[in-house]
């Protein structure tokens, strides 16, 4: 595999008891691209995410992450918090996991925990408020402000995250993930529950993250308007295996993909396509 891949998934296998949630999945994601992972409900998308971000330990296979600088990490060997801390993979959750009792600003400060921990001299220097700690804290606040501004929540910085409307919470979660300065940003259904306008705003945000910060994005999404519009590359899963892989246009026209989504046998797909006049 060449160096222009940020993530190489090789023969990933995830078993739960007797159930094979992901069976021998291989795909790659390129640096600076938005890669979408789509597939019907229960296809194993979130399981793949949980393997990549360390919430599950894969039953088999390799997950290789390469930073733009060239450093590589075998994600299947790192456990949960190290994947974010060392390998710089950040994620959001399908059912939003903010810290609801903390303000939006505090949420973004927590995301900078590791950097701030070092700056505070593992708490001891920070306890006495040494100037270097104060400066580091101010920089962290500035970064949080930058991201709050980017997701349009600067006015609500001091509100409890749990009090924000749904769409704002989704954007705040993305901002929080970005505050960890990730090399790879994994978004689990970021457009779920958003209306058309919010969804368009999300597209813009993700495109600008890619363009301005060079962050590679891995995305699970059901909203095809988002997938088709912003992704560079689409991987389609069904029953834990890859059934298609290519540009959004190529994938959209793939009969196997249509079959998987409509839940019909291959030979019926042809009939459906004829009816649709394709």
């Amino acid at each position, binding site marked *: 595999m060449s160096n222009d891949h940020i993530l190489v998934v090789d023969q990933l296998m995830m078993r739960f008891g007797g159930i094979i949630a992901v069976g021998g999945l291989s795909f790659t994601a390129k640096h600076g691209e938005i890669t979408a992972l789509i597939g019907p409900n229960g296809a194993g998308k*979130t399981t793949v995410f*949980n393997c990549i971000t360390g*919430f599950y330990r894969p039953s088999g296979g390799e997950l290789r992450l390469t930073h733009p600088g060239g450093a590589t990490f075998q994600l299947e060997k790192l456990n949960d918090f190290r994947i974010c801390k060392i390998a710089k993979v950040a994620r959001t*959750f399908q059912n939003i996991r903010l810290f609801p009792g903390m303000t939006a600003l505090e949420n973004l400060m927590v995301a900078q925990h590791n950097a701030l921990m070092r700056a505070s001299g593992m708490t001891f220097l920070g306890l006495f408020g040494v100037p270097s700690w104060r400066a580091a804290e101010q920089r962290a606040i500035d970064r949080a402000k930058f991201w709050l501004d980017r997701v349009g929540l600067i006015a609500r910085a001091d509100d409890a995250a749990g009090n924000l409307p749904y769409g704002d919470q989704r954007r705040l979660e993305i901002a929080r993930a970005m505050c960890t300065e990730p090399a790879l940003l994994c978004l689990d259904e970021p457009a779920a529950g958003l209306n058309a306008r919010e969804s368009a705003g999300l597209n813009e945000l993700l495109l600008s993250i890619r363009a301005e910060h060079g962050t590679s994005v891995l995305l699970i999404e059901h909203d095809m308007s988002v997938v088709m519009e912003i992704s560079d590359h689409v991987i389609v899963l069904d029953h834990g295996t890859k059934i298609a892989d290519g540009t959004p246009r190529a994938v959209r026209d793939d009969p196997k993909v249509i079959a998987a989504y409509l839940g019909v046998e291959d030979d019926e797909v042809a009939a459906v396509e004829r009816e649709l006049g394709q």
Partner: protein
Amino acid sequence: MDYLAQQLINGLVLGSIYGLIAIGYTMVYGIVGMINFAHGDIFMIGGFIALITFLVLVSFGLTMVPVILLVVLLVSMAVTALYGWTVERIAYRPLRQSFRLAPMLSAIGMSFVLMNFAQISQGARVKPVPPIVTGGYTLHEGADGFVVQISNVQILVVITTVLLLALFTWMVSRTRLGRDMRACEQDQTMAALLGVDVDRTISMTFVIGAALASVAGMMYLLYYGLVDFFMGFLAGIKAFTAAVLGGIGSLPGAMLGGLLIGLIETLWSAYFSVEYKDVAAFSILIIVLIFMPTGLLGRPEVEKV
């Protein structure tokens, strides 16, 4: 070998008593998700009620032991069950939709109340009872003269426990109430939407738990021949330990945990030191939970991400 057999019998009996109390903890935890800290004191109240009933019956000139036992059992179960009901009604129901710690603190408060109530109303002194059920069987007489015995009280405790467990298991798995209880355990809101009277079901859970604890209290009274106002605390903690060890929320787990705690305590006292028997029980709890964080028979908690 004979010594071990004797200790196993003793441990089994003690474990049965713990198991009966542990069921109350586990049931309440399963349905309401709280630690009923007052449950140990309910057990103590059960012991007192049994003692008083026994005393009154004897003073009326009743001498037939089986009749006395039956009446004591029924009265003690009924009155103690009402204690369980009242505690739930006063201290827990107003806090049901509340945060996790509030009902727990309320339960601790209720435990103080019950303990102090017994102390005030019946005095602080330990109350000894003469042996009511006497006699026993010699199971085996070793060459060295050591005798393995099982007393009638021990037989009574074990048989009562087994019968109650059978009744209780039947109730949970076959009756309407049992079904309602299982439904509430899964999802109270949904159960209510489907016409289950959640309040009543929860009340009944406390009532049944208290009734079982009162039986444990009576068995304790028969077996050890004494009650005092403070006995609920340690027994309660042990029984709760048993419930957690078995996997809290699991009924067979509570019984298994109870037996294990009883056996550990007895064997440790027999072979090592009496002083450290509780330390042994608690240490084994901690060790088991390190390796099985949800107890022996508890459902492993699947973390949804």
